[in-house]
């Protein structure tokens, strides 16, 4: 988690939202070093400014399809480890897969989540700090698609909640706060989950997220 002000690149072709984001982030003490409107400019801006994190829209010119996503992948190839938070009007698992394949410090959120400002900024800082953040809707997609022989059936309702929050990339503290339980209780749930699903527990929260996601997607 990074607490200092962040240097941020924004890529979104919708001027209205771009300006809104710039205003929001500036008010919160961060610095927007570049605000661009298409894929190639994003790659250039990342290379030129080396930001702490870039906020990227999926649909952008010139192709108006998943341009932002592809630009993000390109940027991360050109500068490995550069943090990218992708915002979109739609979230789909197959887009998330592309991002997750490029390693940690990525995020993928619905644009609506920006309205919950504290959570959004928290997610932004986690991505900048090397974490992985996934939209609850993507996680819901992962949890709903279960076969008749559902291995998740062995989990209790509370354990499923904890699993979903883990998959979103939340820390133990955040999970405890969200579920209004103690951190100790969360740790106990997590160890139960790992035992039931036969996953190896891992201290690093980011690797933990990836382990959970890999499990859910398999």
């Amino acid at each position, binding site marked *: 988690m990074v607490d200092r002000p962040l240097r941020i690149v924004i890529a979104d072709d919708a001027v209205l939202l771009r300006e809104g984001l710039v205003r929001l982030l500036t008010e919160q003490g961060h610095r927007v070093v570049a605000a661009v409107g298409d894929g190639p400019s994003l790659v250039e801006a990342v290379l030129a400014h080396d930001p702490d994190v870039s906020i990227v829209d999926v649909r952008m010119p010139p192709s108006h399809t998943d341009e932002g996503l592809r630009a993000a992948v390109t940027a991360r190839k050109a500068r490995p480890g550069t943090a990218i938070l992708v915002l979109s009007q739609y979230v789909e698992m197959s887009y998330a897969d592309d991002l997750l394949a490029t390693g940690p410090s990525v995020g993928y959120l619905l644009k609506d989540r920006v309205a919950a400002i504290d959570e959004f900024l928290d997610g932004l800082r986690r991505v900048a700090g090397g974490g992985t953040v996934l939209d609850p809707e993507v996680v819901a997609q992962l949890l*709903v698609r279960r*076969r008749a022989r559902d291995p998740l059936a062995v989990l209790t309702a509370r354990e499923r909640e904890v699993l979903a929050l883990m998959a979103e990339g939340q820390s133990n503290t955040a999970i405890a706060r969200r579920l209004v339980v103690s951190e100790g209780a969360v740790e106990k749930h997590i160890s139960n989950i790992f035992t039931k699903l036969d996953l190896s527990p891992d201290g690093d929260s980011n690797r933990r997220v990836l382990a959970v996601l890999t499990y859910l997607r398999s």
Partner: protein
Amino acid sequence: MTTTMTVAAPADTTAERGGSSILRQLGVDTAYILVGFPLVVISFVLLVTGLSLGGGLLVTVIGFPILVLTLWIARGFAEVERLRIAPVLRVPRMHPIYKRAPEDAGFWRKMFTPLTDGQLWLDLVHGILIFVPGVATFCIVVTWWATAVGGLTYWAWDWALPHESVNSAGIVVDNRQLPELLGFPDTAFVRITFNLGVGLFFALTLPWVVRGCALVQAWFSRAMLTGVAQLREQITGLQVREQTAQARTAAAASAEAIALRRLERDIHDGPQQRLVRIAVDLGRAQQQLENDPDAARLTVDEALTHTREALDELRTLSRGIAPPILTDRGLPSALAALAARCTVPVELDVPEVGRSNPLAEQTAYFAAAEALTNAAKHSGATRCVVEVREWSGWLAIRVSDNGYGGAHIAKGHGLAGLADRLQACGGQLIVTSPVGGPTEIVAELPWSTVP
């Protein structure tokens, strides 16, 4: 007459080309020619007589019924011939359309109707003229068969022929055979070898010669007996195609109209209401800010909630118009996302299919979406399976569930609209859903892959 053409696939001519099929065809052709001979002779005699008699007696009334009778006889021979040429030409049997007097027509009308039917007169002309090719081909075929069989079996009956140049009565007979005329010595060996050679030549060429004769005669018959009918059939085919195209256009228009109406209603009931509510809430908050900041905070919270829900609804609507993931990544990814959002567990069996044109992709996607929505909402299913298959320019999507069935195209707008959409792009929707289940919905549509 409303008899229709038999539409059947023409017999496969390339697949079977072994020796047995040549022999079978030889049998068919020979039978055609040999049986044809008495037929053409009888038909020629009857029809020429009938025509001259009827024509000559036209001045008296009695000529008309004779002519009509002659035409009916011609038609009888024509029907037999149509039946006979089918295996020779390897085409299905043709049924031309004959004129028919209305049921309530008077005696004279009924009497005259055949006289005005072009096909009947063609039958008559055919029944007379077929005599020429019929006799010619018969002669050729009989000659070929006789020479082939005679030559090949000559060794067996050479002894029975007289070979001496002076007969038992002492009279000189100049009994010279072809080899002798060609300068060969008149020995049994030469005669047998020579005749065997000739027989072999005729036997080997027999299938082709007989085939040629049969084809000439059959083509002649076909031109006169079914040519007009074929022409008419082609015209009807064109009309049917035009009607299909019109139906497709109508289906497209209907599908679009239904979709637009639904969209308008959804916008009105959903996001529009929310936005109005948000505007009202924000207006209230503006006033509350001065007197009661706590109440203002609550009101803004509410407005935020409504904003989120409005966005959710808009997203659902956009997905219903043109799902972005379908445009970006194609059908398999879009179906995976669809399955992931479905409230009933969905099993996917979707191979990698290429990208197609947007209309086909959207139609295929919405077929699956509508079927899954139906399954989740109405069927009580606990499990769905989505399968996709692609073959030579077609794509089929099958959505099956384990619910209690009873789905029907006519029932809701959903499946009816879907059927329209599929028809509009040249496909079809097949719904199998007996009461008690299970339901199976299959959508088939043309799928031209684009790079």
